[in-house]
C-alpha cells in the first residue's frame, strides 16, 4: 500500500484502493453475504419478517435431501433434487470430456502444426461465433437439431433415417460443448505453444511414435492448461441456465433450473439461495477431488 502511494501519489492510490474495495465488497461480498444470510432463514409471509418466527434455520438446506418424491438411482431411492444434482454433475463431466477431446487436437494443431501466418485467421474464425449471444446460439442449435430441421434434411439427402436428436441430454450436451469449447481451447493452446518444439523432435528422434509423444511430452507439459480448461468448462456447464432450458428435452433437468424454480416460481428465495450455495459447494468439492485424483495443484491452474 505504501509502495502504491509512493509510486502513484495519494489520490490515484486512493482511487485504485477504492475501486478494488467497491468491486469486492459491493459486487462480490455483499450479494453473497445477502444470499448466505437468506439461505439460513425461514420462508415467511412479509408480515412475519422480523417477528418471532424469523429465526436462523438449516431447514432450507435439508429440503435438498428430504424431498418427499424420490427416484431410483443405482440401488437407492434418492430424493429427486439430489438425483437432478447428480445428473447435472454427470453431464457436466461428459461435456468437459467432449470439449477436451475436441479442443486438445485443435489446440495442438494451432500451436504446433498450423502455419504461423494463418493462425490469427483461424483464431478469428473460432471467435466469430462467440460474438453472437448465447441465447441466439442455443436457438440456432434448437433449429438445427429439431426433427424437421436442417440436420435431418441433410441426412435425408443421403438417404439416411431421420433421427430425433433432442431427446434426453443430447441437446444440452451439444449446446454446452458448443458454448464452452473455446474456454477449453485457449488455456490448452497457451500451454502447448510454450512447449519447445525441440522437445517434440527429440522424442521423435529417440523413436517415439506420435501417441507416445503426446502421452509423455505434450500432455504432461500442457497439464496446467488442461486443468484450468476443464475446471472452467465444468463449472460453467454446471452453472449454466440458458442452454439447459432452451435445448432441453422432456427428460432432461438441470440443477440451475431447480434453483430458478425455487426463486421465481415458488418465490422462495430462501430455499433457492440454499440450493445455489449447495451447487457451489458440492461442485467445488467435486473439482477438488478430481484435481487430487489427477495430481493437479491449485498453483498449476493459476498459471
Amino acid at each position, binding site marked *: 500500500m505504501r509502495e502504491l502511494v509512493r509510486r502513484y501519489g495519494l489520490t490515484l492510490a486512493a482511487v485504485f484502493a477504492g475501486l478494488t474495495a467497491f468491486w469486492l465488497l459491493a459486487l462480490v461480498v455483499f450479494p453473497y453475504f445477502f444470499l448466505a444470510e437468506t439461505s439460513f432463514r425461514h420462508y415467511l409471509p412479509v408480515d412475519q419478517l422480523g417477528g418471532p418466527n424469523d429465526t436462523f434455520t438449516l431447514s432450507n438446506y435439508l429440503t435438498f435431501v428430504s424431498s418427499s418424491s424420490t427416484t431410483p438411482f443405482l440401488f437407492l431411492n434418492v430424493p429427486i433434487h439430489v438425483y437432478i444434482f447428480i445428473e447435472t454433475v454427470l453431464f457436466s463431466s461428459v461435456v468437459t470430456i467432449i470439449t477436451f477431446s475436441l479442443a486438445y487436437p485443435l489446440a495442438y494443431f494451432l500451436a504446433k502444426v498450423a502455419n504461423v501466418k494463418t493462425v490469427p485467421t483461424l483464431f478469428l474464425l473460432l471467435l466469430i461465433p462467440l460474438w453472437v449471444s448465447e441465447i441466439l446460439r442455443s436457438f440456432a442449435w434448437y433449429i438445427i437439431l429439431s426433427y424437421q430441421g436442417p440436420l435431418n434434411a441433410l441426412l435425408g439427402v443421403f438417404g439416411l433415417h431421420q433421427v430425433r436428436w433432442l431427446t434426453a441430454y443430447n441437446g444440452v450436451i451439444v449446446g454446452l460443448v458448443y458454448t464452452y469449447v473455446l474456454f477449453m481451447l485457449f488455456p490448452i493452446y497457451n500451454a502447448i505453444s510454450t512447449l*519447445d518444439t525441440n522437445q517434440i*523432435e527429440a522424442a521423435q528422434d*529417440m*523413436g517415439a511414435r506420435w501417441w507416445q509423444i503426446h502421452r509423455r511430452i505434450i500432455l*504432461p507439459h500442457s497439464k496446467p492448461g488442461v486443468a484450468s480448461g476443464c475446471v472452467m468448462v465444468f463449472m460453467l456447464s454446471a452453472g449454466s441456465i440458458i442452454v439447459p432450458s432452451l435445448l432441453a428435452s422432456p427428460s432432461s433437468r438441470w440443477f440451475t433450473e431447480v434453483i430458478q424454480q425455487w426463486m421465481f416460481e415458488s418465490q422462495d428465495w430462501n430455499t433457492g439461495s440454499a440450493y445455489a450455495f449447495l451447487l457451489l459447494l458440492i461442485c467445488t468439492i467435486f473439482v477438488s477431488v478430481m484435481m487430487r485424483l489427477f495430481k493437479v495443484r491449485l498453483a498449476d491452474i493459476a498459471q
Partner: protein
Amino acid sequence: MSEGVELSAVCCDFGDFRAVDHVSVTIKPGEFFSFLGPSGCGKTTILRMVSGFISPSEGEIKIGGQNMRGIGPNKRPTALIFQNLALFPLMPVWENISFGLEVRGVDKETRRAKAEELLRLVDLPNSADKAISQLSGGQKQRVAIARALAVEPKVMLLDEPLSALDLKLRQHMRAELRAIQKRTGVTFIYITHDQGEALAMSDRVGVMSQGKLQQVDTPQAIYNQPANGFVASFVGENNIFTGTVENVAGQMGTFGTSVGNFTAAIGPGVTRNSAARLYVRPEYAHLQAAPAAGNSLPVAVENVAFEGNFINVHLSDAHGGARIIQMRNDKAIAVPAPGERLHMSFAPENAMILADGAGQPASRSAAQSALEASHA
C-alpha cells in the same frame, strides 16, 4: 556398432533459397566428423536431413549403405543432440535417459539399470533421481549425451551442443566428448562454427560456405593446405593480399600486389587468369630491420598485443593495409615498439595463392576479416 554415412549430391531448397548445394561426402564408420562453417552456411540443415526431420530436395543419404529416403526420424539409427539439449524438464534424469528405451517397450528395471550404466559412462553417477532443473550446464550436457547413447545409435549427430557453456567447461567437454566417442566407437557428426572445436576433436573436418562443401580433410590439412581462399580465411588467421597471378611455374607462382611481387605456392586450380589472393599465416611471417631477400615488404608497427605464450604484432603496410605477425614468446626476443618501421618477410613455401571461395568477403582488410572469421 557404428555405421558410415554417405551423402551424394544432396541439395535442400527452402522456397527459392538453396540452403544445401550438392554436398557429397562419405563419413566412415566410427569417425568423428565435423561440419565447420559460419552461421547460415547450411550445416544444421545437413544435420536435420541426416536425422530425418527434413528430406533432401535432391540427392540421397545412406546410413550403413541403406538409403534413408522416406524413413522418419523415429526409425533412423541416429541420435541427435540439440543445440539447446531439449531435455524433458518434467522427467527425472533417469527417465530422460531411458526415454528411448521406454518407447520401445523395455521394462522399468532394465531401463533404470541402463540409465545408471550410462550415467557412469558420462561420469555423472548418483544423479538418476535428480530433476533436470537441479543440474548445471555441464551436467545437462552429459545427460543429453547419455540420453542419445541409450538408444544405441549407429550415428550420433551433435548440433553445436557446447555453445551454451562457458570457456573452461567447453574445453573440458571437448576432451570428454572425444573420449566418449572413442570409448563407444559410434560415428559422430558434429556441427560447429567454432574452428577450435572442429580442429581439436575431429578426425576429419568439412568446411562449408553458402551451402557448398569447400574442403573435406584432416584438421592439419585444412589448416596447412586450405583448398581455397574461404577455407584459408575462415580457419585460422591470415594476411590476405589482393592482386593478380602474374606467373605460374609448376608448384610455385608469382603474385603481383600494390606493395610488391611475391613468390608463393600455388593452390589447387589456380591458373594465370583466376581470381585469387595471397595468404600468409601470421606465425609464418617475420620482422626484421632491413629488407630481406625474397618476399619482403616495408611495414610500420601499429600495436603490440602480448598474449602470454605468443605475441601478436599488428602492422600496416605502405598502402595502409592491416597486417599481422605472430611471434613465439621466447624470453630473448626483442619485442618491436609501436611506430617502429620494419620489414615483414615470409618464405615462399609458407605463402599460398588460393582461388576465391564462395561466401568470401570481397574487399576487406586481411587481418580484420581473418579476425572476424575466427570469432564468428
